């Protein structure tokens, strides 16, 4: 217990404190921006970010990962908020938490193994594009001032770190926000500010039970949203966890993360916040700033609340253009640039999976559907590839000799048709011998394809004998209980 405290919380105190501060500063614009996407007051997103970050710091399965209110989740809530209002959103947030905890107990985190690298890349790119697109309303039908401010903001964000010394010790998104706010106030510009977008928090969050009737009807309204939120939340969280795992060369506990996300969302829902999940961009900022332990996540949430509650009068003055600049940075940083650069190097099937994931997300605004499409496609491509690993050879010494077929390779639903077509029924023979000792039958499709071939030869008047059926069909059994025995696997997949 004490050892874990030391190893997960306090091994990197200085780094975690500072990184937490940097992340908190970048979280404020995000939380506000995502609240606006979801159609609720900025305080809903800010409270959510505080609660989720602080709770997940204790119960999450990936130290150093930042969770808060996210764009991916906000996009799923839009219609719920429009049609039924905030209270239903809070109820849906609670239900999302419950579903995620259940997923954790059912160990669904393990299902992530079916999500291939290209699907993850597609997901990340789609997310980046969604975050960028969400900024467009702020950039349409506005005066040139807004464009100028946004461009200046991006300039500050990317050029400020190049200044020696000071550039690496002050968060450039903060500099951008401060400078743009000062300029807007000084020039008295008439542009939209955060204060125009809705209510900001002025107190610490208080316990609220959503005011919705506890009826079946309510459940019918919120359940579809909660399911989508739970799935997208877990997907983004587990993918982010994988990214942090790779960056830091450490392992995360996926099922604990699922339960943790659930608990964090329940906490958020009870304190008037919207559902959230892990954030790729913020987590990368955290690692880059030197955050590694749970303390960094905790500090991010804690500092966020402190700053928002005590500086709310100042935050109201921030021009939206400054937030847009920060969000564009997050979107650029989230985008996987290498995936575009390496498009030519990767096989076409991989690229198709990635692009399909992106396209489906952009069409539906639902990351879960994109991932589903990507996973299905990747599986089809894989099955297709394996199906090619089958050949059937035949030989017949003379007309009186038996016709001898040898099947080599993988026979399953995707290769069953090819299997049936590989037999030449125009060859007349009294006896047909089908040798399966070097084949693997994976499913019932394979067995029935063989049955058809046998019956067809019988109808042609031949006597059919099958050799090696027992060995070939060993792979049919769903659980071959070989998990820990490399020898058994070797034997099963050998040429018998």
């Amino acid at each position, binding site marked *: *217990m004490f*050892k874990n405290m*030391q190893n997960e919380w306090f*091994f*990197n105190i200085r*780094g975690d404190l*500072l*990184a937490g501060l*940097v*992340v908190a*500063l*970048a979280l404020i614009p995000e939380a506000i921006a995502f609240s606006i996407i979801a159609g609720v007051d900025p305080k809903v997103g800010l409270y959510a970010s505080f609660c989720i970050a602080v709770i997940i710091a204790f119960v999450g399965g990936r130290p150093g990962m930042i969770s808060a209110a996210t764009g991916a989740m906000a996009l799923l809530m839009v219609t719920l908020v429009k049609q039924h209002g905030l209270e239903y959103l809070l109820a849906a947030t609670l239900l999302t938490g419950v579903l995620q905890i259940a997923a954790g107990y059912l160990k669904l985190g393990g299902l992530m193994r079916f999500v291939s690298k290209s699907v993850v890349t597609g997901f990340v790119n789609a997310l980046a594009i969604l975050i960028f697109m969400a900024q467009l309303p702020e950039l349409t039908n506005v005066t040139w001032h807004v464009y100028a401010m946004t461009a200046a903001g991006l300039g500050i*964000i*990317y050029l*400020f*770190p190049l200044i020696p010394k000071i*550039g*690496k*010790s*002050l*968060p*450039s*998104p*903060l500099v951008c926000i401060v400078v743009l706010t000062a300029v807007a106030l000084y020039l008295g510009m008439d542009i939209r500010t955060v204060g125009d977008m809705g209510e900001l928090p002025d107190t610490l969050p208080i316990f609220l039970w959503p005011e919705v009737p506890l009826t079946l009807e309510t459940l019918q309204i919120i359940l579809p949203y909660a399911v989508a939120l739970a799935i997208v939340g877990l997907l983004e969280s587990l993918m982010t966890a994988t*990214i942090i795992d*790779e*960056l*830091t*060369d*450490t392992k995360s506990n996926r099922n604990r993360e699922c339960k943790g996300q659930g608990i964090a969302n329940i906490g958020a829902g009870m304190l008037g916040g919207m559902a959230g999940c892990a954030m790729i*961009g913020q987590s*990368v*900022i955290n*690692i*880059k*700033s*030197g955050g*590694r332990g749970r303390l960094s996540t905790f500090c991010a949430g804690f500092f966020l609340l402190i700053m928002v509650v005590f500086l709310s009068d100042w935050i109201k003055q921030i021009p939206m253009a400054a937030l847009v600049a920060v969000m564009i*940075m*997050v979107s*650029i*940083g*989230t*985008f*996987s*640039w*290498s995936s575009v650069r390496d498009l030519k190097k990767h096989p076409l099937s991989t690229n198709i999976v990635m692009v399909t994931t992106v396209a489906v997300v952009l069409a539906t605004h639902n990351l879960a559907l994109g991932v589903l499409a990507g996973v299905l496609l990747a599986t089809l491509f894989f099955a297709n590839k394996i199906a090619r690993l089958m050949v059937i050879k035949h030989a017949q010494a003379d007309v009186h000799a038996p016709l001898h077929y040898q099947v080599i390779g993988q026979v399953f639903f995707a290769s069953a048709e090819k299997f049936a077509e590989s037999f030449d029924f125009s060859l007349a023979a009294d006896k047909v011998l089908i040798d399966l000792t070097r084949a693997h039958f994976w499913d019932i499709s394979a067995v029935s394809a063989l049955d058809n071939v046998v019956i067809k030869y019988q109808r042609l008047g031949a006597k059919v004998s099958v050799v090696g059926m027992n060995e070939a069909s060993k792979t049919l059994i769903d659980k071959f209980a070989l998990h820990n025995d490399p020898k058994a696997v070797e034997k099963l997949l050998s040429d018998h």
Partner: protein
Amino acid sequence: MQHILACLDESTWSTSVQDAAIWAARQLNSPLTFLHSIEKQTQPDSQDLSGAIGLGARSKLMTEIATLDQLRAKAALQIGKEILAIADSKAQEAGCTQVETLQRHGEFIDTLLTLESSARLVIIGHSGTQTGKKISVLGTHVENLLRQIHTPVLITPHDFSVPKSFMLAYDGRETTELALQRILSNDLLRGLDCHLVTIKNKQPDLEEQFAQATERLTAGGFAVTTRYLEGDIAKQLLDYQQTQAIDMLVMGAFSGSRLRQFFIGSNTLKMLENCNIPILVVK
């Protein structure tokens, strides 16, 4: 054949671990293995607080962190190799014939737990690189290791000298009975004077057991001095050790749970923290 596993690191305790290992290898006439385990340093090196992420931010960050890890690992590997080479030649010089060296990546305790099945005795320093040269500070790994390992552990102080006598605190419980059996059944403490000490407690047949234990040790060829003490266990034992200038302490470990330890404190831990002589923890 089961060997002695001596764990070395970059700290000044390593010399004492080497000396103790050579002594134990001679006493037991057993092969000796020196282990250097490399724990990954997770703290970042420098901090970039700019908080800006641009195109290719993740792959760039990945390269940076991986390069840093590589540099650190290379340095650690090199240092470890040198430490092992020094230990190896020292042991050869001292006449140990079967000496092996091992280097492993990973958490120290995990590494030890995977290696312990082939070890008859594990030797570690009282403290290490993380604690500096403060006698009263127990190494961060020691307690966790003692709770998990099933092999006897010899914990060496900063300076090791060949012991002439040892003390066994006998309370009739299972762990001390085990310690007694171990002392009798192998050669590690052969030729040392034995101080058999007990603290009066509520155990009903303590006196009888104590007499039996004395008899068994004498029959085993030890010169036994017995002593009854009263009062606070750890304090009395430490006082006795100091007045008698006893060189080594033999004890069982952690009969209480962590919860009990949190509220009442653990005698094992008190002894580990305050004793400046080699401690043999019997498992």
